[in-house]
């Protein structure tokens, strides 16, 4: 129901956050579900921008939001190199401090924050669909 487009620049991640804010305000969504989706968007779009494009290449990232009942979803599509975040290895967060890994934290937070996660590749596009249930806090 709401789609925005941004370039692969960190300063443009705000475009996606603002779109989600508009939906939250429009529908009076309560609880922390939207915050969890904001975090997942921050992590995923940051990863796309940081790792997805060869230096200097401009790219386009779109975020399409939808709300159906309590299900709030965003589909993030990018034209970066093929990458499936779901295929990344799980992070072991129980290790002692000295061994705690900091790499892979972003994907870990995405997995933990959203209620459902789906990846597919279509042509030269990566598509990640992230879903949260609103109202469950």
């Amino acid at each position, binding site marked *: 129901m709401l789609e925005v487009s941004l370039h692969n620049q*960190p300063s443009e991640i705000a475009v996606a*956050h603002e779109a989600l804010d508009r939906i939250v305000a429009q529908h009076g969504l309560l609880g*922390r579900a939207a915050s969890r989706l*904001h975090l997942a968007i921050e992590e995923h779009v940051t990863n796309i921008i940081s790792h997805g494009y060869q230096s200097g290449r401009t790219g386009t990232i779109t975020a399409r939001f939808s709300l159906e009942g309590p299900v709030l979803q965003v589909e993030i599509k990018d034209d970066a190199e093929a990458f499936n975040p779901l295929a990344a290895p799980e992070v072991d967060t129980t290790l002692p401090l000295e061994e*705690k890994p900091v790499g892979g934290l972003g994907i*870990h*937070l995405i997995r933990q924050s959203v209620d459902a996660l789906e990846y597919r590749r279509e042509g030269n596009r990566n598509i990640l669909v992230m879903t949260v249930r609103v109202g469950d806090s």
Partner: protein
Amino acid sequence: MEITKLINGDSWDLVVPGRIDGAAANQLEVEVLAGIKAGAREIFINLSQAEWICSAGIRVLLQYHRQMKSNGKVLLVTLPSPGISEILEMTGFRDVIVERR
């Protein structure tokens, strides 16, 4: 995003509000480095008004927690909001970097 600094001798409190995204994480690092350079013995990162923190922000907290600790000093998160607590819990770092009360 405005970080509020409360300095009491060599004890610093940084109050970080709202959404700690990549840009805010950089800002936080600048403030922490200022504290370290000024000789702070303890730096408390008050996250009572923060909504969420991204992995870049968590890496800043962890890096400087370890650095301060190795110098016999302290850097800890205080009064994490429920949203922040939840995120730190996800990473397994909550017990490490949150002040025990």
